């Protein structure tokens, strides 16, 4: 009887406590969920604003002009010498076509503003056409030419037409001409392939990210080629071979510290060591990759050590037990099992390096470079620095290109991180 009473008493207390425990659990779930929700909200806000700002950059306004390939301006009929063809006055062709379309424009000043509707890049477009097919000389042809960035902005409705004329990049007479062209179906927005095939340029409509993408690629290649083997070797040595003593503790603390050093410090180090001491050139992916390798090394070492630690010791004992040497144990069993974790860490480190800007500013990768780099020794920009450069430019058309470049950067980051997740899923092993 007494026993039963005690049991009931206990159960009542347990019940009481149970409710409290469930309440706590529920509260914790709610807090966790709201943390995730707010994170998602911020991320989607970021993505939406960038996309809203940037998606227009993937289109570019083109104007259709009836170009007469006048032999007097280019070269005599039948001429195929590329030197002569490339030196010809293609600007004259564009101007003549414009004049013909707007015969009412006569004054010098007005003509100049008229010519401004077409991008300076139109000249290269025509030259390319003629060089490809010299038979065009002497004929007349309708050609879609790149419009100036101000026209582009007008068409994309980024220009406030209610503003005073003097404050506007598009003057009233230009507006009139454009409207006329639009009425004749001579204005069209097309896919902006230039953005993906050109390097940087002073003219927004001629600028692209190819140079920056190549620069980033070469930089990351150098970074990976150095940081991965060195990082893995360091991790393997520290984890599998070094005896645990005060020195290895000290090294561990230092590696962890290094991971937290501001990246600009690595840039200063790179400037002092690679450029000033070793005399490597400025602004090249080689130096950028070296600096980023220094920066990602701690990340890779820490991730690799964690991956090695997660390999169960029983595997090592099994290998040693049948007479494998420590080196064989590591290379045959431990490394393959730790490799997915190491690769994940490396990819995350690389993604970090891809987005890194500050240290690259220190080693001069912030220069304005038009040419697309052909290798790690050619001066080049990288994606985040390109974003920085464009964000700093006054032209309205660079605003959307900044966002577009960020989108490209994000696309690379997301695919790298997806690759990391995929690798982890694919090679995850259970024992």
């Amino acid at each position, binding site marked *: 009887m007494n026993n039963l009473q005690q049991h009931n008493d206990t159960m009542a207390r347990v019940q009481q406590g149970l409710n409290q425990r469930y309440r706590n659990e529920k509260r914790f779930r709610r807090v966790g969920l709201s943390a995730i929700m707010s994170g998602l909200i911020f991320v989607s806000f970021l993505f939406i604003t960038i996309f809203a700002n940037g998606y227009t950059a993937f289109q570019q306004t083109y104007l259709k002009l009836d170009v007469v390939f006048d032999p007097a301006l280019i070269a005599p009929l039948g001429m195929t010498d590329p030197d002569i063809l490339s030196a010809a006055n293609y600007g004259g062709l564009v101007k003549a076509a414009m004049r013909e379309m707007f015969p009412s424009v006569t004054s010098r000043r007005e003509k100049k503003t008229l010519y401004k509707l077409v991008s300076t890049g139109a000249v290269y477009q025509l030259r390319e056409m003629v060089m490809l097919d010299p038979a065009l000389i002497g004929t007349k042809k309708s050609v879609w030419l790149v419009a100036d960035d101000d026209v582009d902005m007008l068409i994309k409705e980024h220009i406030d037409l209610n503003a005073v004329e003097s404050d506007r990049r598009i003057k009233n007479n230009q507006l009139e001409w454009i409207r006329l062209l639009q009425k004749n179906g001579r204005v069209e927005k097309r896919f902006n392939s230039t953005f993906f095939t050109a390097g940087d340029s002073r003219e927004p409509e001629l600028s692209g990210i190819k140079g920056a993408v190549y620069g980033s690629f070469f930089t990351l290649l150098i970074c990976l080629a150095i940081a991965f083997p060195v990082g893995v070797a360091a991790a393997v040595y520290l984890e599998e071979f070094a005896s645990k003593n005060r020195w290895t503790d000290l090294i561990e603390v230092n590696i962890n510290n290094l991971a937290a050093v501001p990246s600009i410090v690595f840039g200063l180090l790179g400037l002092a060591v690679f450029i000033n001491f070793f005399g490597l050139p400025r602004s090249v992916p080689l130096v950028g990759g070296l600096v980023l390798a220094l920066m990602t090394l701690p990340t890779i070492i820490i991730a690799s050590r964690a991956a090695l630690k997660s390999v169960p010791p029983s*595997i090592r004992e099994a*290998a040693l*037990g*049948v*007479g494998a040497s420590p080196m064989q144990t590591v290379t045959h069993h431990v490394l393959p099992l730790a490799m997915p974790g190491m690769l994940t860490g490396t990819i995350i480190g690389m993604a970090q390096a891809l987005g890194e800007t500050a240290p690259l500013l220190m080693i001069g990768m912030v220069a304005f470079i038009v040419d697309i780099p052909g290798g790690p020794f050619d001066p080049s920009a990288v994606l985040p620095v390109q974003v920085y450069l464009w964000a700093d430019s006054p032209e309205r058309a660079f605003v959307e290109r900044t966002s577009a470049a960020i989108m490209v950067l994000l696309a690379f980051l997301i695919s790298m991180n997806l690759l990391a997740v995929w690798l982890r899923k694919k090679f995850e*092993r259970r*024992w």
Partner: protein
Amino acid sequence: MEEIVNQNGAVTEQLDAATDAEIDMRLVRENHRSETVGEMTVDDPRMICRNVDVYYGDKQAIFNVSLDIGKNQVIAMIGPSGCGKSTFLRCLNRMNDTIDICRVTGVIKMDNQDIYDSRLDVVSLRASVGMVFQKPNPFPKSIFDNVAYGPRIHGLSDSDTHLNEIIERSLHKAGLWDEVKDRLDQPGTGLSGGQQQRLCIARAIAVSPEVILMDEPCSALDPIATAKIEELIDELRENYTIAIVTHSMQQAARVSQRTAYFHLGKLIEVGETDQIFTAPRHKLTEDYITGRFG
């Protein structure tokens, strides 16, 4: 008490006879201090341990243990948890080398050679002294690769057919062949616990060791799998020398010819298994096997 001292004297004389000049007199004299009861030597030893002390850092885990491991015999090591059975067993193939803080002193000889001699190669030692662990630990590779690993790294096979022969023979000896012969390419980790343990035994015997150390090989297994492994141990005795740590006294009684009882890092008593279980000489041994302790 007097009786114990007398027995120790008898043991010392026997030791002299069995190992003559190989073990120096200093060790033999020190042996007087050992408290071990029973016959720590055998006529035909495979391994000879004398005055083995093991320290983990400052803490001593094994105190002055002297013991012979008889050829083609199974010796069982029993004792309460934490008494140092595993530690002692792992001295025999220098597995303790992998623990930084672990230090071993004394003499352990195999083929007249001190295995802790700096000139001795640990790799070749471990090839001749194989080990089976408490928890089955197959490599996360195929069954074939698990068994083939040892022969491959030691270059034991001249050809693929030879390797296949070794694998088949090892799996046969481990009593696993019939169960896995159709799925050698499947992962070893996909086998049942008992099968995994037999796979580990097959892996150990594939390199043809002379001694096999087993640390509680059946502790994770059900009675049927245990019975299979015990049967296997009995068969293996024909060709191998086996030292097995076990918590099951029935198992020790069933599979072993000699039994060593450890207590708090000391070797308390060692002798013929029958004698240990029917007429233990030391009070601690008696308490342990009658269940009054441990």
